[in-house]
Protein backbone atom coordinates (compact mmCIF):
# COMPACT_ATOMS: atom_id res chain seq x y z
CA UNK A 1 0.00 0.00 0.00
CA UNK A 2 1.59 3.13 -1.29
CA UNK A 3 0.88 5.16 1.82
CA UNK A 4 3.33 3.03 3.74
CA UNK A 5 6.30 3.83 1.50
CA UNK A 6 9.06 5.51 3.45
CA UNK A 7 9.28 8.98 1.95
CA UNK A 8 12.35 9.83 4.03
CA UNK A 9 14.23 7.02 2.35
CA UNK A 10 13.09 8.04 -1.13
CA UNK A 11 14.00 11.66 -0.45
CA UNK A 12 17.54 10.63 0.40
CA UNK A 13 17.79 8.75 -2.88
CA UNK A 14 16.50 11.74 -4.88
CA UNK A 15 18.99 14.08 -3.19
CA UNK A 16 21.89 11.71 -3.73
CA UNK A 17 21.05 11.32 -7.42
CA UNK A 18 20.64 15.06 -7.97
CA UNK A 19 24.01 15.72 -6.32
CA UNK A 20 25.48 13.29 -8.83
CA UNK A 21 23.80 15.20 -11.66
CA UNK A 22 21.11 12.54 -12.25
CA UNK A 23 17.39 12.05 -11.69
CA UNK A 24 15.95 8.81 -10.28
CA UNK A 25 13.93 8.25 -13.43
CA UNK A 26 16.97 8.99 -15.64
CA UNK A 27 15.56 12.18 -17.17
CA UNK A 28 17.71 15.21 -17.99
CA UNK A 29 17.22 18.11 -15.53
CA UNK A 30 15.16 20.06 -18.09
CA UNK A 31 13.19 17.09 -19.40
CA UNK A 32 9.45 16.38 -19.07
CA UNK A 33 7.90 12.99 -18.55
CA UNK A 34 5.71 11.56 -21.33
CA UNK A 35 2.57 13.60 -21.87
CA UNK A 36 -0.74 12.04 -22.91
CA UNK A 37 -3.78 14.10 -23.90
CA UNK A 38 -7.34 12.83 -24.45
CA UNK A 39 -9.96 15.35 -25.55
CA UNK A 40 -13.72 15.45 -24.94
CA UNK A 41 -14.05 12.90 -22.19
CA UNK A 42 -17.43 14.11 -20.86
CA UNK A 43 -20.46 14.77 -23.08
CA UNK A 44 -22.17 16.94 -20.49
CA UNK A 45 -19.19 19.30 -20.39
CA UNK A 46 -19.01 22.03 -23.04
CA UNK A 47 -15.32 21.18 -23.36
CA UNK A 48 -13.15 18.67 -21.53
CA UNK A 49 -9.83 16.87 -21.53
CA UNK A 50 -7.78 14.38 -19.58
CA UNK A 51 -4.05 14.94 -19.34
CA UNK A 52 -1.39 12.65 -17.99
CA UNK A 53 2.18 13.72 -17.34
CA UNK A 54 3.86 10.48 -16.43
CA UNK A 55 1.43 8.93 -13.98
CA UNK A 56 0.03 12.26 -12.87
CA UNK A 57 -3.56 12.27 -14.11
CA UNK A 58 -5.89 15.27 -14.31
CA UNK A 59 -9.31 15.79 -15.80
CA UNK A 60 -10.84 19.15 -16.66
CA UNK A 61 -14.33 20.12 -17.77
CA UNK A 62 -15.59 23.52 -18.87
CA UNK A 63 -19.13 24.80 -18.51
CA UNK A 64 -20.26 28.03 -20.18
CA UNK A 65 -22.83 29.62 -17.89
CA UNK A 66 -24.84 32.82 -18.24
CA UNK A 67 -24.39 35.14 -15.28
CA UNK A 68 -24.35 38.78 -14.18
CA UNK A 69 -21.22 40.73 -15.15
CA UNK A 70 -19.04 42.32 -12.46
CA UNK A 71 -20.07 45.94 -11.74
CA UNK A 72 -16.61 47.17 -12.81
CA UNK A 73 -16.74 45.27 -16.14
CA UNK A 74 -20.39 45.50 -17.17
CA UNK A 75 -19.58 44.67 -20.80
CA UNK A 76 -17.42 41.60 -20.27
CA UNK A 77 -17.69 37.95 -19.35
CA UNK A 78 -15.32 36.19 -17.02
CA UNK A 79 -13.41 33.06 -16.09
CA UNK A 80 -13.68 30.97 -12.95
CA UNK A 81 -11.09 28.28 -12.24
CA UNK A 82 -11.64 25.69 -9.51
CA UNK A 83 -9.52 22.78 -8.37
CA UNK A 84 -10.50 19.67 -6.43
CA UNK A 85 -7.64 17.56 -5.21
CA UNK A 86 -9.86 14.47 -5.10
CA UNK A 87 -9.10 11.97 -2.32
CA UNK A 88 -9.06 9.47 -5.20
CA UNK A 89 -5.70 10.88 -6.30
CA UNK A 90 -3.60 10.51 -3.17
CA UNK A 91 -3.77 9.06 0.35
CA UNK A 92 -2.99 12.54 1.67
CA UNK A 93 -5.84 14.39 -0.07
CA UNK A 94 -9.01 14.86 1.93
CA UNK A 95 -12.53 15.68 0.83
CA UNK A 96 -13.88 19.05 1.87
CA UNK A 97 -13.85 22.70 0.91
CA UNK A 98 -10.81 23.89 -1.07
CA UNK A 99 -7.68 24.17 1.09
CA UNK A 100 -4.74 26.48 0.53
CA UNK A 101 -2.99 23.97 -1.78
CA UNK A 102 -5.89 23.73 -4.20
CA UNK A 103 -6.61 27.46 -3.98
CA UNK A 104 -3.01 28.29 -4.92
CA UNK A 105 -3.12 25.80 -7.79
CA UNK A 106 -6.40 27.22 -9.10
CA UNK A 107 -5.20 30.81 -8.88
CA UNK A 108 -1.89 30.13 -10.65
CA UNK A 109 -3.67 28.31 -13.51
CA UNK A 110 -6.23 31.15 -13.65
CA UNK A 111 -3.57 33.89 -13.83
CA UNK A 112 -1.56 32.07 -16.49
CA UNK A 113 -4.62 31.95 -18.76
CA UNK A 114 -6.30 35.25 -17.89
CA UNK A 115 -3.19 37.43 -18.03
CA UNK A 116 -2.15 36.07 -21.43
CA UNK A 117 -5.28 37.85 -22.71
CA UNK A 118 -6.01 34.76 -24.80
CA UNK A 119 -9.72 35.13 -24.07
CA UNK A 120 -11.52 38.23 -25.27
CA UNK A 121 -13.96 38.67 -22.41
CA UNK A 122 -15.76 41.48 -24.25
CA UNK A 123 -16.99 38.90 -26.74
CA UNK A 124 -18.72 37.15 -23.86
CA UNK A 125 -21.00 40.08 -23.08
CA UNK A 126 -24.62 39.24 -23.85
CA UNK A 127 -26.36 42.34 -22.52
CA UNK A 128 -24.31 45.10 -20.93
CA UNK A 129 -24.63 45.25 -17.18
CA UNK A 130 -27.04 42.33 -16.89
CA UNK A 131 -25.90 39.20 -18.71
CA UNK A 132 -22.61 37.65 -19.83
CA UNK A 133 -20.89 34.30 -20.23
CA UNK A 134 -18.73 32.85 -17.48
CA UNK A 135 -16.45 29.93 -18.27
CA UNK A 136 -16.26 27.58 -15.29
CA UNK A 137 -13.07 25.58 -15.64
CA UNK A 138 -13.13 22.78 -13.07
CA UNK A 139 -10.00 20.74 -12.51
CA UNK A 140 -10.00 17.32 -10.82
CA UNK A 141 -6.85 15.47 -9.83
CA UNK A 142 -7.24 11.74 -10.45
CA UNK A 143 -3.72 10.53 -9.63
CA UNK A 144 -0.98 12.55 -8.00
CA UNK A 145 2.54 11.65 -9.06
CA UNK A 146 4.04 15.15 -8.97
CA UNK A 147 3.60 18.39 -10.90
CA UNK A 148 -0.16 18.74 -10.74
CA UNK A 149 0.34 22.42 -11.64
CA UNK A 150 1.48 21.79 -15.22
CA UNK A 151 -0.99 18.96 -15.81
CA UNK A 152 -3.85 21.14 -14.57
CA UNK A 153 -2.81 24.11 -16.70
CA UNK A 154 -2.35 22.00 -19.82
CA UNK A 155 -5.68 20.19 -19.37
CA UNK A 156 -7.37 23.56 -18.84
CA UNK A 157 -6.03 25.03 -22.08
CA UNK A 158 -6.89 21.90 -24.07
CA UNK A 159 -10.40 21.92 -22.60
CA UNK A 160 -10.89 25.59 -23.46
CA UNK A 161 -9.70 24.91 -27.02
CA UNK A 162 -12.42 22.24 -27.26
CA UNK A 163 -15.12 24.33 -25.62
CA UNK A 164 -18.26 25.02 -27.64
CA UNK A 165 -20.41 28.08 -27.05
CA UNK A 166 -24.01 27.10 -26.17
CA UNK A 167 -26.88 28.50 -28.21
CA UNK A 168 -29.08 31.11 -26.58
CA UNK A 169 -32.82 31.60 -27.05
CA UNK A 170 -34.57 34.36 -25.11
CA UNK A 171 -31.37 34.68 -23.10
CA UNK A 172 -31.66 31.06 -21.99
CA UNK A 173 -29.27 28.26 -22.90
CA UNK A 174 -30.67 25.68 -25.31
CA UNK A 175 -29.43 22.40 -23.88
CA UNK A 176 -27.16 20.44 -26.20
CA UNK A 177 -27.07 23.02 -29.02
CA UNK A 178 -23.98 25.04 -29.86
CA UNK A 179 -22.79 27.81 -32.18
CA UNK A 180 -19.13 26.88 -32.66
CA UNK A 181 -16.08 26.87 -30.46
CA UNK A 182 -14.95 29.77 -28.27
CA UNK A 183 -11.90 31.68 -29.52
CA UNK A 184 -8.45 31.61 -27.92
CA UNK A 185 -5.82 33.96 -29.33
CA UNK A 186 -2.93 32.39 -27.40
CA UNK A 187 -2.12 29.08 -25.72
CA UNK A 188 -0.33 29.87 -22.45
CA UNK A 189 1.29 26.86 -20.78
CA UNK A 190 2.70 26.51 -17.30
CA UNK A 191 6.16 25.15 -16.52
CA UNK A 192 7.06 24.18 -13.01
CA UNK A 193 10.51 23.66 -11.56
CA UNK A 194 11.75 22.15 -8.32
CA UNK A 195 14.82 23.30 -6.46
CA UNK A 196 16.49 20.20 -5.05
CA UNK A 197 19.79 20.54 -3.23
CA UNK A 198 21.41 23.27 -5.36
CA UNK A 199 19.88 22.19 -8.67
CA UNK A 200 16.70 23.12 -10.47
CA UNK A 201 14.77 20.45 -12.38
CA UNK A 202 11.75 20.68 -14.68
CA UNK A 203 8.51 18.72 -14.22
CA UNK A 204 9.23 17.27 -10.75
CA UNK A 205 7.90 13.80 -10.00
CA UNK A 206 6.28 13.11 -6.64
CA UNK A 207 9.52 11.85 -5.00
CA UNK A 208 11.24 14.97 -6.31
CA UNK A 209 8.51 17.21 -4.90
CA UNK A 210 9.00 15.58 -1.50
CA UNK A 211 12.74 16.35 -1.74
CA UNK A 212 12.41 19.90 -3.09
CA UNK A 213 13.14 23.00 -0.99
CA UNK A 214 11.26 25.38 -3.27
CA UNK A 215 9.05 25.47 -6.37
CA UNK A 216 8.90 27.96 -9.22
CA UNK A 217 6.25 28.10 -11.92
CA UNK A 218 6.17 30.30 -14.99
CA UNK A 219 3.42 30.53 -17.61
CA UNK A 220 4.60 31.33 -21.14
CA UNK A 221 2.93 31.92 -24.50
CA UNK A 222 3.88 30.84 -28.02
CA UNK A 223 5.00 34.42 -28.74
CA UNK A 224 7.47 34.23 -25.84
CA UNK A 225 5.61 36.29 -23.29
CA UNK A 226 5.68 35.45 -19.61
CA UNK A 227 2.18 35.70 -18.11
CA UNK A 228 2.53 34.41 -14.55
CA UNK A 229 5.19 33.61 -11.94
CA UNK A 230 4.69 31.77 -8.69
CA UNK A 231 7.36 30.89 -6.17
CA UNK A 232 6.28 28.37 -3.53
CA UNK A 233 7.90 26.21 -0.90
CA UNK A 234 9.99 26.87 2.17
CA UNK A 235 13.27 27.60 0.38
CA UNK A 236 14.52 30.29 -1.98
CA UNK A 237 15.80 30.87 -5.52
CA UNK A 238 18.64 33.01 -6.78
CA UNK A 239 17.95 35.50 -9.53
CA UNK A 240 19.96 33.47 -12.01
CA UNK A 241 18.03 30.29 -11.19
CA UNK A 242 14.81 32.13 -12.04
CA UNK A 243 16.27 33.47 -15.28
CA UNK A 244 17.45 30.03 -16.34
CA UNK A 245 14.09 28.44 -15.50
CA UNK A 246 12.36 31.00 -17.74
CA UNK A 247 14.62 30.05 -20.65
CA UNK A 248 13.93 26.34 -20.20
CA UNK A 249 10.20 27.02 -20.02
CA UNK A 250 10.27 28.95 -23.31
CA UNK A 251 12.09 26.01 -24.90
CA UNK A 252 10.04 23.14 -23.42
CA UNK A 253 6.64 24.62 -24.19
CA UNK A 254 7.44 24.73 -27.90
CA UNK A 255 7.60 20.93 -27.78
CA UNK A 256 4.55 20.46 -25.58
CA UNK A 257 2.48 22.81 -27.71
CA UNK A 258 2.86 20.44 -30.68
CA UNK A 259 0.81 17.84 -28.81
CA UNK A 260 -2.21 20.07 -28.26
Amino acid at each position, binding site marked *: *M*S*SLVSWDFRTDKVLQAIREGKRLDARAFDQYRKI*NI*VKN*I*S*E*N*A*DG*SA*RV*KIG*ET*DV*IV*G*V*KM*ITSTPFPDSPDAGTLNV*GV*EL*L*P*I*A*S*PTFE*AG*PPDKESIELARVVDRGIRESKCLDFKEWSIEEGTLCWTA*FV*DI*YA*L*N*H*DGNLFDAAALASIVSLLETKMPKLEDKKIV*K*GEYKGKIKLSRKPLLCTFAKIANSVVADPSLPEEKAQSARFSVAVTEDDYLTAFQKGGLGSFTASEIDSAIDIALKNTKEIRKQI
Partner: protein
Amino acid sequence: MAAKKKEEKTEFVNKQGKRLDGRTTDQVRPIKIQVGVVPRADGSCYLEWGQNKVIAAVYGPRECLPKHTASPYKAVVRYSYRMATFSVPDRKNPKPGRRDIEISKVSSEAFERAIFTERFPNTAIDIFVEVLDSNAGTRIAALTCAAVAVADAGIPMRDLISGVAVGKAGGKIIVDMNKFEEDAPDAVDIPMAILPNTEEIVLLQMDGLLSKKEWLEARGKAFEAIKQVYELQKQALLKKYEQPVEAAENGGVVQ
Protein backbone atom coordinates in the same frame (compact mmCIF):
# COMPACT_ATOMS: atom_id res chain seq x y z
CA MET B 1 -36.58 15.61 -8.64
CA ALA B 2 -38.43 18.58 -10.08
CA ALA B 3 -37.36 17.45 -13.56
CA LYS B 4 -39.51 18.35 -16.52
CA LYS B 5 -41.80 15.55 -17.54
CA LYS B 6 -42.25 14.60 -21.17
CA GLU B 7 -45.56 14.74 -23.03
CA GLU B 8 -48.06 12.17 -21.82
CA LYS B 9 -48.35 10.58 -25.25
CA THR B 10 -44.71 9.53 -25.73
CA GLU B 11 -44.55 5.80 -26.49
CA PHE B 12 -41.55 4.51 -24.58
CA VAL B 13 -41.76 0.93 -25.87
CA ASN B 14 -43.04 0.31 -29.40
CA LYS B 15 -45.07 -2.59 -30.74
CA GLN B 16 -41.89 -4.49 -31.58
CA GLY B 17 -40.89 -4.26 -27.90
CA LYS B 18 -38.10 -1.80 -28.69
CA ARG B 19 -37.30 1.33 -26.68
CA LEU B 20 -36.49 4.72 -28.23
CA ASP B 21 -32.75 3.98 -28.07
CA GLY B 22 -33.30 0.60 -29.71
CA ARG B 23 -32.95 -1.54 -26.60
CA THR B 24 -35.40 -4.25 -25.50
CA THR B 25 -37.15 -3.80 -22.14
CA ASP B 26 -34.63 -6.19 -20.55
CA GLN B 27 -31.49 -4.80 -22.13
CA VAL B 28 -28.72 -3.05 -20.21
CA ARG B 29 -26.70 -0.27 -21.88
CA PRO B 30 -23.12 -1.12 -22.92
CA ILE B 31 -20.74 -1.42 -19.96
CA LYS B 32 -16.94 -1.09 -20.11
CA ILE B 33 -14.76 -1.70 -17.06
CA GLN B 34 -11.03 -1.11 -16.53
CA VAL B 35 -9.36 -2.18 -13.30
CA GLY B 36 -6.40 -0.46 -11.65
CA VAL B 37 -6.41 3.00 -13.23
CA VAL B 38 -5.16 4.99 -10.22
CA PRO B 39 -1.60 3.90 -9.40
CA ARG B 40 -1.49 5.70 -6.04
CA ALA B 41 -4.63 3.98 -4.74
CA ASP B 42 -4.79 0.55 -3.09
CA GLY B 43 -7.47 -0.42 -5.59
CA SER B 44 -9.25 1.42 -8.40
CA CYS B 45 -11.59 1.11 -11.34
CA TYR B 46 -12.90 3.13 -14.27
CA LEU B 47 -16.33 2.26 -15.60
CA GLU B 48 -18.52 3.43 -18.48
CA TRP B 49 -22.20 2.50 -18.45
CA GLY B 50 -23.87 4.04 -21.47
CA GLN B 51 -22.95 7.72 -21.23
CA ASN B 52 -22.18 7.41 -17.50
CA LYS B 53 -18.49 7.57 -16.69
CA VAL B 54 -17.24 6.96 -13.16
CA ILE B 55 -13.90 6.45 -11.48
CA ALA B 56 -13.46 4.78 -8.09
CA ALA B 57 -10.45 4.49 -5.81
CA VAL B 58 -10.06 2.59 -2.53
CA TYR B 59 -7.66 3.38 0.29
CA GLY B 60 -7.42 1.00 3.23
CA PRO B 61 -7.75 -0.66 5.54
CA ARG B 62 -5.94 2.31 7.06
CA GLU B 63 -5.90 4.27 10.31
CA CYS B 64 -9.38 5.55 11.19
CA LEU B 65 -9.25 9.25 12.03
CA PRO B 66 -10.61 10.95 14.08
CA LYS B 67 -10.04 8.05 16.45
CA HIS B 68 -13.41 8.22 18.22
CA THR B 69 -15.05 7.21 14.91
CA ALA B 70 -13.22 3.85 14.84
CA SER B 71 -14.74 0.60 16.03
CA PRO B 72 -12.86 -2.02 18.07
CA TYR B 73 -14.99 -4.72 16.40
CA LYS B 74 -14.67 -3.94 12.70
CA ALA B 75 -13.47 -1.67 9.92
CA VAL B 76 -15.59 1.40 9.23
CA VAL B 77 -16.55 1.75 5.56
CA ARG B 78 -16.71 5.34 4.30
CA TYR B 79 -18.17 5.66 0.82
CA SER B 80 -18.19 9.00 -0.92
CA TYR B 81 -20.30 9.55 -4.06
CA ARG B 82 -19.62 12.84 -5.80
CA MET B 83 -20.40 14.34 -9.21
CA ALA B 84 -17.97 16.53 -11.16
CA THR B 85 -19.44 19.98 -11.80
CA PHE B 86 -19.48 19.33 -15.55
CA SER B 87 -20.96 15.83 -15.39
CA VAL B 88 -24.58 17.01 -15.58
CA PRO B 89 -26.52 19.22 -18.03
CA ASP B 90 -26.56 22.20 -15.62
CA ARG B 91 -23.33 22.94 -13.78
CA LYS B 92 -23.42 21.18 -10.41
CA ASN B 93 -22.51 23.11 -7.29
CA PRO B 94 -19.14 21.68 -6.18
CA LYS B 95 -20.39 21.40 -2.59
CA PRO B 96 -21.92 17.96 -1.88
CA GLY B 97 -25.71 18.21 -1.80
CA ARG B 98 -28.30 16.26 0.16
CA ARG B 99 -28.64 13.75 -2.69
CA ASP B 100 -24.88 13.04 -2.67
CA ILE B 101 -24.96 12.53 1.09
CA GLU B 102 -27.93 10.15 1.00
CA ILE B 103 -26.44 8.07 -1.82
CA SER B 104 -23.11 7.90 0.01
CA LYS B 105 -24.88 6.71 3.15
CA VAL B 106 -26.89 3.87 1.60
CA SER B 107 -23.90 2.81 -0.51
CA SER B 108 -21.65 2.69 2.58
CA GLU B 109 -24.19 0.43 4.22
CA ALA B 110 -24.22 -1.89 1.21
CA PHE B 111 -20.44 -2.29 1.43
CA GLU B 112 -20.59 -2.88 5.19
CA ARG B 113 -22.49 -6.05 4.33
CA ALA B 114 -20.24 -7.08 1.43
CA ILE B 115 -16.85 -6.61 3.09
CA PHE B 116 -15.58 -8.84 5.91
CA THR B 117 -15.16 -5.73 8.04
CA GLU B 118 -14.75 -7.75 11.23
CA ARG B 119 -11.28 -8.77 10.06
CA PHE B 120 -9.94 -5.20 10.27
CA PRO B 121 -10.93 -3.71 13.63
CA ASN B 122 -10.01 -0.07 14.36
CA THR B 123 -9.42 0.74 10.69
CA ALA B 124 -11.23 2.64 7.95
CA ILE B 125 -11.83 1.52 4.39
CA ASP B 126 -12.32 4.62 2.23
CA ILE B 127 -14.10 4.29 -1.09
CA PHE B 128 -14.21 7.42 -3.24
CA VAL B 129 -16.25 7.58 -6.44
CA GLU B 130 -16.41 10.52 -8.83
CA VAL B 131 -18.96 10.76 -11.63
CA LEU B 132 -17.35 12.37 -14.72
CA ASP B 133 -20.32 12.13 -17.09
CA SER B 134 -23.90 11.10 -16.46
CA ASN B 135 -27.15 9.93 -18.00
CA ALA B 136 -29.37 8.23 -15.39
CA GLY B 137 -28.31 5.38 -13.13
CA THR B 138 -25.11 6.93 -11.77
CA ARG B 139 -25.49 5.68 -8.20
CA ILE B 140 -25.63 2.09 -9.46
CA ALA B 141 -22.78 2.66 -11.94
CA ALA B 142 -20.75 4.11 -9.05
CA LEU B 143 -21.52 1.18 -6.74
CA THR B 144 -20.70 -1.37 -9.43
CA CYS B 145 -17.42 0.39 -10.21
CA ALA B 146 -16.54 0.70 -6.53
CA ALA B 147 -17.11 -3.01 -5.93
CA VAL B 148 -14.46 -3.81 -8.54
CA ALA B 149 -12.08 -1.28 -6.98
CA VAL B 150 -12.54 -2.89 -3.55
CA ALA B 151 -11.73 -6.28 -5.04
CA ASP B 152 -8.71 -4.75 -6.80
CA ALA B 153 -7.51 -3.52 -3.39
CA GLY B 154 -7.46 -7.12 -2.22
CA ILE B 155 -10.02 -6.49 0.50
CA PRO B 156 -11.89 -9.73 1.30
CA MET B 157 -15.60 -9.64 0.44
CA ARG B 158 -18.51 -12.04 0.85
CA ASP B 159 -19.25 -11.28 -2.80
CA LEU B 160 -19.04 -8.41 -5.27
CA ILE B 161 -21.91 -5.93 -5.21
CA SER B 162 -23.79 -5.78 -8.50
CA GLY B 163 -26.75 -3.60 -9.30
CA VAL B 164 -29.09 -2.10 -11.81
CA ALA B 165 -31.87 0.49 -11.82
CA VAL B 166 -35.16 -0.90 -13.04
CA GLY B 167 -38.24 1.19 -13.49
CA LYS B 168 -41.37 2.16 -15.31
CA ALA B 169 -41.96 4.53 -18.22
CA GLY B 170 -45.09 4.81 -20.34
CA GLY B 171 -46.68 2.02 -18.31
CA LYS B 172 -43.95 -0.50 -19.14
CA ILE B 173 -41.45 -2.07 -16.75
CA ILE B 174 -37.98 -1.56 -18.24
CA VAL B 175 -34.43 -2.26 -17.21
CA ASP B 176 -31.63 0.34 -16.86
CA MET B 177 -33.58 3.50 -17.70
CA ASN B 178 -31.86 6.35 -19.48
CA LYS B 179 -32.43 10.03 -18.70
CA PHE B 180 -35.19 10.44 -21.27
CA GLU B 181 -37.12 7.48 -19.84
CA GLU B 182 -36.54 8.74 -16.29
CA ASP B 183 -38.38 11.91 -17.25
CA ALA B 184 -41.55 10.05 -18.33
CA PRO B 185 -44.67 11.49 -16.65
CA ASP B 186 -45.32 8.16 -14.90
CA ALA B 187 -41.65 7.32 -14.34
CA VAL B 188 -40.70 5.04 -11.45
CA ASP B 189 -37.05 4.56 -10.58
CA ILE B 190 -35.85 1.57 -8.53
CA PRO B 191 -32.08 1.46 -7.88
CA MET B 192 -31.21 -1.97 -6.52
CA ALA B 193 -28.04 -3.81 -5.64
CA ILE B 194 -27.44 -7.33 -4.37
CA LEU B 195 -24.72 -9.78 -3.45
CA PRO B 196 -25.24 -11.91 -6.57
CA ASN B 197 -24.45 -15.31 -5.09
CA THR B 198 -26.86 -15.10 -2.16
CA GLU B 199 -29.28 -12.67 -3.83
CA GLU B 200 -29.30 -10.62 -0.63
CA ILE B 201 -30.60 -7.11 -1.27
CA VAL B 202 -28.04 -4.60 0.08
CA LEU B 203 -29.39 -1.46 -1.58
CA LEU B 204 -32.97 -0.70 -2.51
CA GLN B 205 -34.65 2.61 -3.16
CA MET B 206 -37.69 3.59 -5.15
CA ASP B 207 -39.66 6.63 -6.08
CA GLY B 208 -42.79 6.86 -8.18
CA LEU B 209 -46.27 5.34 -8.16
CA LEU B 210 -45.97 1.56 -8.39
CA SER B 211 -48.38 -1.29 -7.76
CA LYS B 212 -47.32 -4.40 -5.86
CA LYS B 213 -47.72 -6.39 -9.10
CA GLU B 214 -45.44 -4.03 -11.00
CA TRP B 215 -42.87 -4.28 -8.21
CA LEU B 216 -42.79 -8.05 -8.56
CA GLU B 217 -42.23 -7.76 -12.32
CA ALA B 218 -39.52 -5.12 -11.85
CA ARG B 219 -37.75 -7.17 -9.21
CA GLY B 220 -37.64 -10.21 -11.48
CA LYS B 221 -36.18 -8.20 -14.37
CA ALA B 222 -33.63 -6.59 -12.05
CA PHE B 223 -32.30 -9.93 -10.81
CA GLU B 224 -31.81 -11.10 -14.39
CA ALA B 225 -30.02 -7.91 -15.47
CA ILE B 226 -27.77 -7.92 -12.41
CA LYS B 227 -26.40 -11.33 -13.44
CA GLN B 228 -25.06 -9.76 -16.65
CA VAL B 229 -23.46 -6.90 -14.74
CA TYR B 230 -21.83 -9.38 -12.37
CA GLU B 231 -20.25 -11.27 -15.27
CA LEU B 232 -18.74 -8.07 -16.68
CA GLN B 233 -17.28 -7.17 -13.29
CA LYS B 234 -15.65 -10.58 -12.94
CA GLN B 235 -14.27 -10.46 -16.50
CA ALA B 236 -12.66 -7.08 -15.88
CA LEU B 237 -11.00 -8.34 -12.72
CA LEU B 238 -9.69 -11.41 -14.53
CA LYS B 239 -8.37 -9.27 -17.39
CA LYS B 240 -6.17 -7.28 -15.03
CA TYR B 241 -4.18 -10.36 -14.20
CA GLU B 242 -4.08 -11.62 -17.78
CA GLN B 243 -2.70 -8.51 -19.50
CA PRO B 244 -0.60 -5.58 -18.42
CA VAL B 245 -2.58 -2.41 -17.81
CA GLU B 246 -2.06 -0.15 -20.78
CA ALA B 247 -1.67 3.56 -20.42
CA ALA B 248 -4.88 5.32 -21.29
CA GLU B 249 -4.16 6.07 -24.94
CA ASN B 250 -7.80 5.22 -25.38
CA GLY B 251 -8.98 7.45 -22.55
CA GLY B 252 -8.66 4.75 -19.95
CA VAL B 253 -11.33 2.58 -21.50
CA VAL B 254 -11.22 -1.09 -22.27
CA GLN B 255 -12.96 -1.51 -25.63
